[in-house]
């Protein structure tokens, strides 16, 4: 067992939480501390969808695009969020407030369509609810 490897994912998660993304410097530092190659660190950082090697906004919106949410018009929710914050999925607002992503099934299928903002789950979404939900975030 490589003791360094064992701690890698947990430390990447901590860094993601603290800095909002995993910069090259962060990954290089982790590689040095854990005696791993930087490509190993990069390989793990890029495997998981909740880790990002690009800067993200302070708040990350993830709209579920999997089948049950698709059947309940997640596209309408996506369009509403786009209009509300002015960016498309994959982008970040210029003021750094929101990043916007589409994600796969988050397990809220009985209350579709659903989304997450950071660790909060919002379900039974309608276009009318979006504005109020987003206003709560700084």
């Amino acid at each position, binding site marked *: 067992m490589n003791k360094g490897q064992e701690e*890698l994912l947990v430390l990447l998660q901590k860094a993601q939480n603290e800095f909002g993304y995993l910069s090259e410097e962060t990954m290089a530092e982790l590689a040095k501390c854990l005696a791993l190659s930087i490509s190993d660190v990069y390989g793990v950082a890029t495997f998981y969808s909740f880790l990002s090697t690009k800067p993200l906004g302070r708040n990350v919106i993830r709209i579920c695009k999997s089948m049950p949410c698709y059947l309940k018009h997640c596209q309408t929710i996506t369009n509403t969020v786009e209009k509300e914050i002015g960016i498309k999925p994959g982008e970040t607002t210029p003021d750094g407030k929101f990043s916007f992503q589409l994600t796969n099934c988050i397990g809220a299928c009985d209350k*579709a369509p659903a989304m997450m903002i950071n660790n909060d789950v919002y379900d039974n979404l309608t276009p009318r609810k979006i504005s109020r939900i987003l206003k709560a975030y700084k």
Partner: protein
Amino acid sequence: MPQKRIVLRNCGVINPKDITTYLDRDGFKALKKVFDELTCEQVIEEIKASGLRGRGGAGFPCGLKWALARKAQGNEKYVICNADEGEVGTFKDRYILEGDPFTLIEAMAIAGYAIGAKKGYIYLRAEYHHHLDLLTNAIGQSREKGFLEHFDIDIREGAGSYVCGEETALMDSIEGKRGEVRYRPPFPPSRGLWAKPTIINNVETLMNIPQIILNGAHWFNQVGTEQSRGTKVFSVSGDVKKPGVYELELGSRLKELVEDLALAERVKMVQVGGATGRIIPYEMIDTPLAFENILGAGAIIVFDETRDIIDVVYRTMEFLAEESCGKCAPCREGTEVMVEILGRFSRGEGEERDIAVLQGLSQAMMLSSLCGLGQAAPIPVIDSLQYFRSAYENRIQKN
């Protein structure tokens, strides 16, 4: 048939933040019985005799898995609870964790006793982070009451990866790596987490353990069918009036679940099992839900007459291609090829040879993929070709 709540018996009844409400409902009595009255081998024999099979999708006999880990050499063994629940349309484990984390903790402690493990992990998907405090609190209270003296539990969080619900990818993830699937043999009970004997059980599977210990295997045998003992918690979503979780005896009919309980109307087809689940056309809706018929993890997605089968299969394959761990060529390349072909069908640009290509590729992927994702990815394609062939033929471009 009415619902039968074995797994969900405490959900909505106890306070998941207060262990005393669990103790009032025979909480931790099974663990006490195991320590006071049963040897490890007797516990395993009881679980074997119950016929309990895995509830995460694969249906592997639980008692056999535990017996293999018990037999394995070594003092360091692990129990892992798979709470990754990424299967599309599945949310039953979420309900269970929200409503009754204590039964899960007791079950893991019993499993640890049975196989000789002192340590357990709950692998909790990142998307369920908002349940982390509840789980941590429940473990803390169990420790305070002295129930975890011989077996402790830690939580490891996922970071967004469907394939980490596969047991070997899950172990690689706990080990700090990319969630890639391992070659087997060796199997986890002989060589698993950090190469030590490990059992990985789904949340719902474990939830059955304390009741089986308290009431006996014979009691569990009264429920379900001969090859599928017990109940199953179904997650129902899609074109239904009453989506949600339903716990039914195994062997219950899909029609009863979808039409009588979930109140679906004008059903065209139902996908049973998740993204790689079987597609059941309405004519076959009377199929029993059991391992020997159709089951999977019990995700039930209902599609009404307005839905387009090609669109459904295409989007499903896009999901699978995106989530493939990438390690083996049949899955990594095969899913991408299927996405390309299905994409053209969805735009009405199918070619004559495409159906034969899909069929041949399906055989190759089922035979040679490293894990269930690649092996079962062709299932929606195969089923849709069997039951909705004309949908494909109508979209072949005639030159």
